């Protein structure tokens, strides 16, 4: 007998506490699953925007935040309805392979190279740890990385196949630093596929396989360099209290441009996807009103993302209306 009572109590407690938020998932409603990157989610932008989408359409957005590579894989497997990512080449291949309907520009920001510098110049003790690879003032991102490699200063890499990691590898290839190629063989649908990644071989290079926020935090603790998107960096650096003392040591190289695209998953490939909601989402996020909202979104007064040019908007409209 003794056992029936706790069980009963558990059930009652569950019903009491579970009747609010947590049980909502079970109630049937129009849900759109968005696979996106940690950078858009961690920055708080999506939560801000989606309130508007939910008010206008009644569709609730379920955000699964992974790296770009993982987000696209989710969509390829049919586990998402729409993706919002930032690795142009992979996005185009995703559409060309028939997984996505079409890619639309949404917004852009840029990558920055962060490094340990002490802005309070009075602190001489920490000056020794200030930009030890001497990057400050270097405009060329590949040159900045080359100097980190030459000085063998600690560099923290996402190492997770994310858009940021892909950009980082692109930059390393331009440095002419000797690189190691790692080939991972994965069977997918019975076919072996090879995934290549490159890295400099030294011990100073830390590939941690984590999201953007975590990577900046590790770099902060190690007083290391890292490549980050400006949005996530601002979200951490401008938080109160600030969570990182790394500063931007290299920015403005055209190669550091970071465009985000939205792609609805192709219903011809995955008939079960919520195409109606996905189409509505694509149309909504590329609409002038939401584009303006993206441009107005700030953290501590700093703009994190710039909307895709409004002039392009009409062309997109036509394509997504198809």
């Amino acid at each position, binding site marked *: 007998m*003794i*056992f029936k*009572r*706790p*069980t009963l*109590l*558990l*059930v009652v*407690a*569950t019903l009491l*506490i*579970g009747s*609010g*938020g*947590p*049980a*909502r*998932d*079970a109630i049937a409603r129009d849900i759109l*699953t968005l696979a996106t990157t940690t950078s858009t989610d*961690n920055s708080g932008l999506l*939560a801000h925007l989606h309130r508007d989408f939910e008010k206008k359409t009644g569709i*609730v957005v*379920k*955000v*699964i*935040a992974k790296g770009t590579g993982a987000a696209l894989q989710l969509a390829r*497997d*049919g*586990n998402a309805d729409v993706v919002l990512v930032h690795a142009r080449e992979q996005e185009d291949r995703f559409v060309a392979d028939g997984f996505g309907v079409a890619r639309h520009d949404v917004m852009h920001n840029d990558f920055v190279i962060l490094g340990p510098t002490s802005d309070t110049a009075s602190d001489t003790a920490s000056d020794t740890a200030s930009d030890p690879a001497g990057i400050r003032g270097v405009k060329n991102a590949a040159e900045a990385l080359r100097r980190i490699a030459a000085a063998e200063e600690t560099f923290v890499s996402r190492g997770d196949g994310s858009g940021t990691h892909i950009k980082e590898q692109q930059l390393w290839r331009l440095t002419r630093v000797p690189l190691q190629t790692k080939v991972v063989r994965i069977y997918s*649908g019975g076919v072996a596929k090879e995934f290549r990644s490159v890295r400099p071989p030294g011990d100073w290079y830390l590939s941690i396989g*984590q*999201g953007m*926020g*975590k990577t*900046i*935090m590790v770099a*902060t603790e190690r007083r290391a360099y890292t490549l980050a998107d400006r949005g996530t960096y601002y*979200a*951490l650096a401008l*938080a109160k209290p600030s*969570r*990182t003392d790394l500063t931007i040591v290299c920015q403005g190289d055209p190669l550091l441009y970071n465009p985000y695209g939205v792609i609805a998953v192709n219903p011809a490939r*995955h008939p*079960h996807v919520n195409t109606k909601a996905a189409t509505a989402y694509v149309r909504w996020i590329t609409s002038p009103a939401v584009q303006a909202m993206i441009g107005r979104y700030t953290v501590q007064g700093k703009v994190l993302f710039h909307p895709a040019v409004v002039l392009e908007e009409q062309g997109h409209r036509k394509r997504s209306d198809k």
Partner: protein
Amino acid sequence: MQTLLDALRNALHLIFTLDADVFEYAGRSLLIASVSTLIAAVLGIPLGMLIAERTFRGKRAVVTVLNTALAFPTVVVGLFIYTLLSRTGPLGQLQLLFTIPAIIIGEVVLIVPIITAFTMTAVARTDRDVRKTAIALGAGRRQALWTVFCESRFGVAAAVIAAFGRVVSEVGVATILGGNADRFTRTMTTAIVLNVDMGNFALALALGGVLLALSLSINVLFQYVQGGGPD
């Protein structure tokens, strides 16, 4: 040190202002833990008793497998269920991935071995004499089994509590099968991980404190209902 003090203040603030997010995560964690413990108990207790009661060929192998299952890494359990529930998997039709039921399935797989193994041990320990006595006193097979169950109830309760604790504190299954989607599948533990990743240590620690307080209250409740436990 400051972080710890901040965390304490944050935790108290979150609790006393009845922070909506925290209550949502806590409610979700509690829901998942309760339901999966209930299901696992319904499956694991009879299974544990059966294994303890019966003698059959390969019993030692079964026990070994069961004990190995206690060491299942949560991420492996999560991944295994993920491949089943993914759209490309055999159960993809159910559309369960990244939902609360998906997490519950994973947790049940994780803790059924715990409840089974603990129950088995508890029953095996009390079994022989109790059962003989019950039968000697004229009990039928069923009644004898019931007596054995009652006599080993504290061990079985320990199994259930351990299983509940495992789910409440677990992060691998919840992350992989839930996806940490805000307003859908974010639990106390996945929220803690997210805040750690974002360098929000004070809030992460505070959430940890709230989770501990939650576990404490559940256990106090359990103890109370159970009537003090073994002397």
